[in-house]
Each structure stands twice: as structure tokens, then as C-alpha cells.
């Protein structure tokens, strides 16, 4: 196996994203084993992916990171410059897209507008040589499973976003793929529909017996839908692991921002970590060498005057750079001795008379920080 086995671990499906233990499964002939290299001059994608049947892997990354290119390479819509692609042991690099056992749910679904929902779903089986009547029966069964039996004869333009999405999933599954690809499956939906469709999709993915790879830039979608996250930045994998692992131990600013943590790199010596950014920080963990330290914005307490009686540890002089509302919370972006984000209630913000430019003291309890080896 040419993949980088040292870093790749796979996990069984989980029902609870906070469940910490997830046993790695052996990747043998079954499942996906790929190294996708796509060279486009200025941009180079080089991503290794492995997954066992039943796995749901999310490719997470900012726009332009190469997620969609990776997905298109898996589908055969983009040729590999280098690397390999094996599915259930069979090499697929040179197989045209129509002959790959791969189903794709496109970002805006791309339901064929001239066909009914039923015929959209029957399209795949028909192409595989299933007789028309049989293909329609199968399609009807898929729509039934998706709760769309009533809309079988509707044209796509008559379907709501959520319904269209489910038709697209049914259409992709109807070819009985060994690899299901979903490109931003929820991005086209409004917030309310999204909640409902996400839950349904999660159920369908959990039932799906082969490998599913989904692309998203939304961490919540990734964490709810996937067993394992692969974070891609600039065409490279920067981190992968369970959602819980990644949420707790972000290794890049992008991920830290996604999961809403303050993240710093530094050198630990016992409980003290000398941050690369300057000041020191005290943690509960005892480590040595290069580490990451993370803490949530809610762990930060702000004072207008230097708090008396408190220990001088983890206390920094800062200035409010900007503020924005986050639900019923206010998030304050601070600069100064340490750049950090702090969450406080609207009432607290008013009492402190916070405004951009205001000088504040920020403190974090050591018990609320979390340090881990870099």
C-alpha cells in the first residue's frame, strides 16, 4: 500500500460525535485506497485517502483547497497526474467515469430538468442495462425509502430544495455504487431545511454499506455526517481524525477558527508553555517540547481594571479590536499581549462598557486550557 499508513487511521461509524474511542479498522482489499495527485501548474493537489466500507469521510477545507478537485478525481471527471485509485482492490485510474462503481451527489444536484424524479432515479439503472419497467420499479423503491413516493412524477423544478437533494441521493444510490461522493450536499439549502435534510442524510449515510466521501466547508455538516474528517488546505492534507479529535486538537488556524477555539503554538516545559506569540501560559497538562495550546473563547474572562487577588498567571493586557454578536453572546476580538477571541454575555459587555479600542485585562483558567503535542 502506497498510502501513508503512519498517519492514516480509520474509524467505525459513530452515533455520538463526542464518543472518544473509535477503533481503527484494517484496510485490506475492501474499501477505498487512493493517492490523488492532480497537477494544474499553479495548483497541485496531493491527497491520500483510505476508507473501509461503511466509513463516511468528510473532506473539509476552505474554498480553493482542492476538495472538489479531489472528489472529481475520484469520480473520474478529472484525470490523475500521478498516484493511484483502488476501490475494493480494483484499480480505477484508467477507468472512464461511466464504468466506475461511483455515485455522485452534485452540489446543486444537477437533476435532469426534463425528466421526472422517478426517471432521474431510473436513469442510472437504465444505463446499466436494466429494462425500463424494472428500472422504474427500482427507482420507485428508492424514492419510497427517501419518503418521496408522492413526488415521483414531479419534474425537478417542482421540487423543494430538500426534496431535490433527496432525489439526487436516491439517483446516486440507485446505481448501487461502491463509493458514494457528495459535493457540498447541504450548501444549496436554507438554514431551516438544512437541519432536517442533514438528519435524514445522516441516517441514509449510516445505512450505506460502502464508502462515502463528502466534501464540505461547513464543520458542523462534516462533524454530524462523517466518522472521520480529512482537512485539506492548499491541496494537502493538514490534519485528519475523528470529529471529536479534530474539534479538540486543532492543528491549524483554519481548523481552530472552524471549531471556534483559540489556538497557539509553543514550547512546553512542565505546566508552562512559552507561546511563539510571546507570553507564557500555564496549563494543566505536563508536557515538554513543541505543543499546541487551545481554549474556547468562553473560557476567557475580561476585566476593565487589573483584577486584584487573582494570580498573575494567564493574565494579559489587551485591547478590543472588534465585536460581533454570536447568538445571545458577544464575541470580542482582542489584540495586545496575546491575540484572542473572548465570548461574554450582552449584559457583561454592557457592564464592562466594551467598545472597540477599549483596554481590557483578559484571563483564562489553566483548567480550561488544553495542551497537546504538536
Amino acid at each position, binding site marked *: 500500500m502506497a498510502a501513508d499508513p503512519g498517519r492514516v487511521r480509520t474509524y467505525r461509524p459513530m452515533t455520538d460525535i463526542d464518543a472518544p474511542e473509535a477503533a481503527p479498522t484494517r484496510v485490506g482489499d475492501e474499501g477505498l485506497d487512493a493517492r490523488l495527485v492532480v497537477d494544474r501548474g499553479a495548483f497541485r493537489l496531493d491527497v491520500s485517502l483510505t476508507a473501509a466500507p461503511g466509513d463516511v469521510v468528510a473532506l473539509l477545507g476552505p474554498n480553493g483547497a482542492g476538495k472538489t478537485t479531489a472528489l472529481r478525481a475520484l469520480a*473520474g471527471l478529472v484525470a490523475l497526474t500521478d498516484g493511484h485509485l483502488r476501490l475494493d482492490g480494483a484499480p480505477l485510474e484508467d477507468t472512464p*467515469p*461511466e464504468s466506475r462503481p461511483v455515485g455522485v451527489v452534485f452540489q*446543486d444536484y*444537477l437533476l*435532469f430538468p*426534463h425528466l421526472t424524479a422517478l426517471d432521474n432515479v431510473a*436513469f442510472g439503472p437504465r444505463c446499466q442495462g436494466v429494462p425500463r419497467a424494472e428500472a422504474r420499479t427500482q427507482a420507485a423503491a428508492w424514492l419510497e425509502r427517501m419518503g418521496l413516493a408522492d413526488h415521483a412524477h414531479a419534474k425537478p423544478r417542482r421540487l423543494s*430544495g430538500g426534496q431535490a437533494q433527496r432525489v439526487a441521493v436516491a*439517483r446516486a444510490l440507485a446505481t448501487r455504487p461502491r463509493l458514494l461522493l457528495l459535493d457540498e450536499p447541504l450548501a444549496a439549502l436554507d438554514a431551516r431545511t438544512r437541519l432536517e435534510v442533514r438528519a435524514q442524510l445522516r441516517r441514509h449515510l449510516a445505512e450505506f454499506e460502502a464508502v462515502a466521501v463528502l466534501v464540505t466547508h461547513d464543520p458542523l455538516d462534516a462533524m454530524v455526517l462523517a466518522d472521520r474528517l480529512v482537512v485539506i488546505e492548499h491541496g494537502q492534507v493538514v490534519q485528519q481524525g475523528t470529529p471529536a479529535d479534530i474539534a479538540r486538537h486543532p492543528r491549524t488556524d483554519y481548523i481552530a477558527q472552524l471549531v471556534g477555539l483559540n489556538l497557539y503554538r509553543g514550547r512546553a516545559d512542565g505546566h508552562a508553555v512559552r507561546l511563539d506569540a510571546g507570553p507564557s501560559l500555564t496549563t494543566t497538562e505536563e508536557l515538554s517540547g513543541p505543543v499546541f495550546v487551545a481554549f474556547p473563547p468562553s473560557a476567557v474572562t475580561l476585566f476593565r481594571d487589573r483584577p486584584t487577588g487573582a494570580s498573575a498567571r494567564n493574565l494579559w493586557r489587551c485591547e478590543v479590536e472588534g465585536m460581533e454578536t454570536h447568538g445571545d453572546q458577544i464575541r470580542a476580538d482582542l489584540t495586545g499581549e496575546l491575540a484572542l477571541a473572548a465570548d461574554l454575555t450582552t449584559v457583561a459587555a454592557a457592564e464592562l462598557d466594551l467598545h472597540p479600542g477599549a483596554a481590557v485585562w483578559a484571563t483564562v483558567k489553566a483548567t480550561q486550557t488544553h495542551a497537546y503535542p504538536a
Partner: protein
Amino acid sequence: MTSPLGPDAATGPRTGRPRRRRVGTGGRRGVPLPLLLPGLVALAFLLLPLLALIVRAPWRTLPDQLSSTQVWQALQLSLVSATAATAVSLVLGVPLAWLLARTEFPGRGFVRALVTLPLVLPPVVGGVALLLALGRNGVIGRWLDAWFGITLPFTTTGVVIAEAFVAMPFLVISVEGTLRAADPRYEEAATTLGASRFTAFRRVTLPLIAPGIAAGAVLAWARALGEFGATITFAGNFPGRTQTMPLAVYLALQDDPDAAISLSLVLLAVSIAVLAGLRDRWMTGA
């Protein structure tokens, strides 16, 4: 349809196609003058010559003018050959349009320019070119004659060929434009569902671009119906075999302008009837 998803979710198309907005019946409101005036001038410019034709038509002698069998022969031949030329254009032109729109090959821009050449070529020159290629003594025609005994000039097939030659570019350009505007990802979606590129074209792309094909076919048909220069040069002029309406009109003009006007009126009336009929049937809902 009831949906708990709110009005936007319930009615908005979600397939990546632009949202169609329903235009109210009071669409005349606020038409800007700089558009209205030239538009009306253009309409008048296009209709005035036709109007003159109607005004100057010899209505009294019209029944006599149109009673000759030669007129109806020419009309029938025109309709049959224009339709056949359109069919030829469809069968050959749509694949060409697809090649131009969806494949990469060296010199594609040049080939696209070549395709439009019959549009700028004077039709008579086109006719001569066809003779040089497919005539009894032509580059290819001599072999057709020698091997199969087929000669195309002076035959109805020759009329269809001449008309297809000048009409096909209209279809190719129209279909190619529609293909370029159509989302190629539908074809990709079809291939991920197991469709070969041809199946994807036939079952997905073709229905998607049907309105563009219909528009191109109507253009090609209209052009073929009015074709004169290439037809008379390549296929000659023989009543019932190669004499189409435009040829009959031209020759009638030589010694009897009134007859020419009468024939033109018939051609106009038939064209308007067919085009209006097709427009209602095909173009709506496009």
C-alpha cells in the same frame, strides 16, 4: 404543493437553472424610448417591403395566376426540399455543433470559422463550388458517377444538397450557441450514472438543448425555403424536378412581374403559416 419549507423553498427551482420570473401582463410599463423607437423603425423596415408586395399584388388576376400546375408543383417541391434539407442539416449539423462546443482539437476556432463560410459566400458561388465538388466532373462527383452512376446536378437531390449547404450553418451556429450556454455538468452527472458520452448526449443534452435545436431548424428551414442562387446554379431549373418557388418567382419576374408578385405572396403565406405554427408548438416553454 404544500411544503413546510417556506415559500422560497417550495417554488424555487433547485436544479441550477436560472430562475424563471413570471412577467405580469402589464409588461408595456416603462419601455424606454431609445429602445422603443428604433425597435419600431426596425419592425417597419422589415415589414414595409412585404406590405408593398401585398399592396401591389394583382388581386384581381391572382386566381388565374395561381391556377397553373407549375405554381403548385414549385410550391410542393420547395416544401419537400426545404424540409429534407433541414433534416439533413439536423442529422449532420447537430453532431458537428456538439464537436465544436464540447471537444478540444487543434484549429477548432478555424473550423468554426469555416463552418460559417457558406453564410458569407454568395449563394451562386456556393452553387459553383458544389458543382466543382459534386458535379458530374467534380472532385467527388466524378467518382459518384463512375462507381455508382449517380449524378447530382439537375436532380431534386441536388436541390436538397444546395439548400442544405446554405442552411446548415444557421443550424450549427444556433445549436452550438445553445450547447455552450447549456451546463456541461449535466453530461458529467449522466456519465457518473453510467451513461457513455453518447448516451449522455442523447438522453440528457439533446432534450436540454431541444429549444435551441428547434430554433436552429426553423432558421435553416426558412433559409432553405428561400434559397435561390445555389439551387439554380447547382441543380438547374426544371419544373417539377428542380424548380422551387424562388426560381419560379425569379423567372416569372423576367417577363411577368405580376405573376412574380403572386408567387411571392404564396411563398410568404405558406412560410408565415408554417413558422407561426412551429413557433407556437415548439418555442413556447423553451
